[in-house]
């Protein structure tokens, strides 16, 4: 079967244009990465300058240091407390927060694309076009996933640049990213996007509005917070191996949710619910 890429591109182009016309949709996608890009470097880089080095030897930092695998402890050896604080803050405690970006972007765009179409009463016209159910579903999945990946990677690159530039004079070398960031951004991040989108697609088949559909993926923030608190409290350390393992699990769940969603995505089902 050959895909009707022209039609799929038209749907994606149209969905993207609509996103840029709706502040409620694009604003959170700008604000959250912006906060992450400003707040984290601020905490990581500016705080050591403002505080006395003695004050930085707080309990949490010590606990965090103890929880690190030996290769990271080696990496931090020989650094001053301020330098250790900067490297640690930039690399470890808030890393799971970065997963919120691909989750949020894919679920917002997914909700707008699937449920928003129904809410705006534009779905019927689309269903009368020659595009097949699979092509329509795929176009809508891609328009949620591609921007999520782009924003995810762009945020990572920008964050890396900002953190390294801001902390360079203090640390004296490039200190970001450490090894776990790579699977975090390129393996677990996409998996989280897929899972968020899967949950949104499932909700969209029942939801009447964009907001209803988007709320579903809000629940997925909880495991991310758990990862962050777990790492901050020293409960576990998100090593490359652990991230790969979690990623595998999340990919499995995400793809399963998308597969279930695709089963509910048939013209007959959709038009009966209009």
């Amino acid at each position, binding site marked *: 079967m050959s895909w009707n890429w022209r*039609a799929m591109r038209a*749907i994606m182009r*149209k969905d993207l244009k*609509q996103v840029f016309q709706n502040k409620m949709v694009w604003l959170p996608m700008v604000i959250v990465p912006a906060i992450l890009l400003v707040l984290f470097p601020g905490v990581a880089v500016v705080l050591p300058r403002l505080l006395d080095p003695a004050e930085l030897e707080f309990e949490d930092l010590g606990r965090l240091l103890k929880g690190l695998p030996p290769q990271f402890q080696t990496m931090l050896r020989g650094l001053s407390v301020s330098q250790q604080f900067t490297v640690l803050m930039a690399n470890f405690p808030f890393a799971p927060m970065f997963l919120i970006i691909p989750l949020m972007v894919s679920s917002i765009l997914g909700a707008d694309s699937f449920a928003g179409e129904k809410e705006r009463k*534009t779905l019927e*016209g689309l269903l009368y*076009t*020659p*595009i097949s159910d699979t092509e329509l579903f795929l176009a809508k999945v891609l328009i949620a996933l591609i921007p999520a990946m782009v924003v995810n990677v762009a945020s990572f690159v920008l964050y890396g640049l900002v953190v390294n530039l801001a902390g360079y004079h203090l640390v004296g070398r490039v200190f970001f990213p450490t090894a776990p960031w790579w699977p975090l951004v390129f393996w677990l991040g996409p998996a989280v996007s897929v899972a968020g989108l899967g949950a949104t697609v499932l909700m969209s088949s029942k939801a009447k509005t964009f907001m209803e559909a988007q709320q579903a993926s809000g629940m997925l923030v909880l495991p991310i917070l758990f990862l962050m608190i777990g790492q901050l409290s020293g409960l576990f350390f998100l090593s490359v191996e652990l991230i790969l393992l979690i990623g595998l699990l999340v990919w499995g769940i995400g793809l399963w949710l998308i597969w279930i969603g695709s089963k509910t995505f048939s*013209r007959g089902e959709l038009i009966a619910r209009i």
Partner: protein
Amino acid sequence: MAEAILTEGLTRHFGPKVAVNHLDLRVAQGEVFGFLGPNGAGKTTTVRLLNGVLTATAGRAFVLGYDVATDGSEIRRRTGVLTETPSLYEALTARENLLIYGDLYGVPEDKLPRRVEALLEQFGLGERADERVGSYSKGMKQRLAIARALLHEPPLLFLDEPTASLDPLAARMVWDMIQDLSHREGRTIFLCTHNLAEAQRLCDRVGVIDHGVLQAVGTPRELARQLWHGLWVEVDLHGEPPASVSEALGRLPAVLSRSVDHGKLLLEVEDEESIPEVVAAIAAAGGRIYSVTPREHTLEEIYFEIEGNSNKAEGLKGQGGR
């Protein structure tokens, strides 16, 4: 003439509700077919079934020779549908709406911009083509939705209430356009409407659907013949008929009934062939005839007669079921 639409026993259930019940329908190519019926009668479900958007519970249907069960995409490539709600992207401009649908319908890329421009001009939207559709009036949106249905020059058009939100001038433009599309371009139009005057004006044949069942189908004249035994003729005698005329008409077996309506003699005769005999009898009885006009039943009269019969039948069914 080849059929644009052919259905045999087409049926669709939604749970216990039967939305379309054993629909047998033939629509010829180039014909303007009016599909009449009250809200919830099964008109929209039929359009969805015929476009392969909904699957049938039973029966089969062919549109432009394609099977609706298996060739939905091929059918939709060749049909244009104006839905009851215009289904437009209000955050986008009229031009953007048409360009997107041009891509969806596979209008050749080199021809699309010119085609879009021509339709925008034809429907009087050229000056505001680059404004967001959300700022358009209802009538402008409807015109844009019709333009969208015509974008890929489909041989078969499904129009659901095409003039419902248009002012009289715009409605007339759409009527002219429908006639043009049918008579000059040979396209088939499947027109769902509540507007009986519109159907009378535009349709070659009509079908009346109610409670999912096709109650009657044919030209207005054929339907009138099915519903009423004879043909009505209005004879202007400039006043009440003299007794001699009444007596003469009473003796004619071709005259089925007679009455006086607004000072004119209204006769129900067996058929067209009876008219000369009736005229001769009136003249022989001393009646002075100023005009003789066969009175066609309006579509409105036909529709309400069919609807009345359908509701009576449903009522009886309901009583029988209790």
